[in-house]
């Protein structure tokens, strides 16, 4: 038999216990956050797997083409504009820097390698995130809060097959193509600033590119752009699809915050994964 008596020892124990709780609180918080992150990563992975499994199918083809037009074709203008000025500023900076060492002949290779290996895939992905990714999240989010996604389920149409898979496959097709456009226009921009405006010999510029750029550099750039495509499409679709599950807001506000989260998370993940993929490829 146990007898519980209120004694000074009892209150000492309680004080000790509360002290331990206070000390452990930050660890508990970190643990909880880590578990939440792992849960979320798991959920996103399952979401992506389900979407990838549902890509094949005759009926998916038309929807994918539509999305390629929306994500890809309609982004060309902004991609061309950004790439032209990126190439021009690269040409300008590298010409002045390399001239100090008498190596202005290497401008072409510096501009092209920077664009093909890094700036092309990264800036293309960021620009598509801003233009199409945010729109994808907002569109799917609105469809979620206005019960259109529930309506699909009641009509026996798989919402992931109908809404998500075509967007992910379209992103996988569009990102490398837009990256190629970015690279080409960027190199042209470098040519304009270095050759046309600063007087570098055009033949030297092109020869430098021809000599130092390998096919593997181009392939690595495309590998990166495919990784970014999967990341951006998954994050944007996921944020919109589960906009109604947000704990911090509801309705239209949830869609707004989901869109912001999608853009910020995509941009951060593009830069993080860029480092990871580069370290694996180099």
């Amino acid at each position, binding site marked *: 038999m146990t007898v519980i008596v209120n004694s000074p020892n009892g209150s000492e124990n309680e004080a000790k216990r509360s002290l331990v709780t206070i000390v452990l609180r930050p660890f508990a918080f970190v643990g909880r956050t880590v578990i939440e992150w792992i849960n979320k990563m798991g959920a996103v992975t399952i979401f992506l797997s389900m979407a990838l499994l549902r890509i094949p199918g005759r009926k998916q083809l038309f929807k994918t083409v539509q999305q390629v037009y929306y994500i890809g074709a309609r982004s060309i203008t902004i991609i061309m504009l950004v790439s032209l000025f990126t190439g021009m500023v690269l040409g300008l900076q590298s010409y002045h820097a390399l001239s100090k060492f008498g190596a202005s002949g290497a401008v072409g290779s510096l501009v092209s390698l920077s664009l093909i290996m890094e700036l092309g895939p990264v800036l293309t992905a960021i620009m598509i995130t801003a233009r199409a990714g945010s729109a994808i999240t907002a569109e799917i989010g609105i469809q979620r809060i*206005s019960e259109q996604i529930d309506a699909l389920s*009641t009509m*026996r*149409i798989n919402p992931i097959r109908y809404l998500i898979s075509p967007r992910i496959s379209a992103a996988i097709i569009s990102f490398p193509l837009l990256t190629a456009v970015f690279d080409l226009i960027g190199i042209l921009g470098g040519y304009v600033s270095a050759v046309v405006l600063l007087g570098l010999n055009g033949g030297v510029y092109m020869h430098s590119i021809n000599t130092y750029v390998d096919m593997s550099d181009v392939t690595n750039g495309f590998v990166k752009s495919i990784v970014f495509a999967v990341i951006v499409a998954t994050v944007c679709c996921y944020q919109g699809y589960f906009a109604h599950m947000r704990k911090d807001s509801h309705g239209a506000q949830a869609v707004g915050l989901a869109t912001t989260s999608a853009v910020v998370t995509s941009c951060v993940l593009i830069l993080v994964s860029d480092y990871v993929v580069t370290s694996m490829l180099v």
Partner: protein
Amino acid sequence: MDTPLIEFKNVTKRFGRKTVLENVNLRIYEGQITTIIGLSGSGKSVMLKHIIGLIQPDEGAIFFRGKPIARMKKSELAESFSRISYMFQGNALFDSLTVYDNIALPLQETTNLKKAEIDRRVMARVEQTELSEAIHKYPSELSGGMQKRAALARALITDPQIVLFDEPTTGQDPVRKNAILSMIAQYQRKFNFTAILVSHEIPDVYFISNRILALYDRQIVFQGTPEELENFDHPFMDEVINSLEALQKELTGLYSKRQFAMLNHVQLKRRTFGESYCIVVFSLKELHTMITKVGHDAAQEALRNMGLYIDKHFGAIGGISTRFGTNEIITMLPYSNLDEAENIMGNFVMDFHEQIMPAIQTGACKFASEGESVEVTILAGIAEGKPTATVDSVMNLAKSQQKEIGRLTCAAGGANK
């Protein structure tokens, strides 16, 4: 009784700490229109979403044709749910698709039908729901009533056996509200599906419902026919039915059937034993023909206006009027014998020809859809009853003595088209 099509046994649903449904038991039978009534936010839509599997119960079980849904195989479950369609409260139409694409969507995505066959089926539904002019429009370009019709067409495109309607009349004016209810009743008869409605349009839903389920305080407190609900003694009647019926009286001028019966009872008790009263039964004879030829909206507008004028005329001399069934209006004259009632009726018929009929005609024609013109007959019959006689028997007597008091002609663009 037969095995219910859908049965809830002790279903409980919680969202966080809030319990929305608690030990809910209900039965829904095949081939009927069952309406779930209750106040807003009482959990009616949640109950409907359980039926289609959008929400799972925390406790209890849901049975489909006697089989528990939770124990069904995936293929069995898919087969059961494939027979169900759902019409959402907010329509849930895809705003980036045209009306045609919205209606065709279930067929395009879930069947291997050829384009020509899909086109044929969609066009058939479009014509039935009077959406021919809106076929290439987007949902945002349609009126609320047209959006409802588009949602209804989409729900019916797969020829479902069960259709769930989540507040189908929300945000509609009284004419369109009754037009939608009338449309549901008409299609239910035509396509013979089981309809489950969620609504708080009391008493309008009584006219089309075979069974009523009353949700109150997280539980189903009543299951039965609309007539049985009239005799239901429960706080639900005071808190829900009375308040909604009072609102209905304010909006339309007509009493509900239940209020009518209560007022009858009170009025008749006041009279000394042996004194008589009269009942007049008005009918719009070819209402269904009118619906077919000029549309639900025009037919409901004609019926509503007729009710308003009858109430205005007879209300001034103490008469109490109510809508009864889909095409009848009943007026009780509590202090009149047959001679007096016939005199009052004579005056009414004169007014009816001079003022009321042209007004009803103009109102209805405004809502008429393009099509043939239609002529409908308005009948009226009077019967005298003693306080000891049941109101139903006097009403039947009045109905048997109905005579034509006028004819309405209605067509799109005006009566004389």
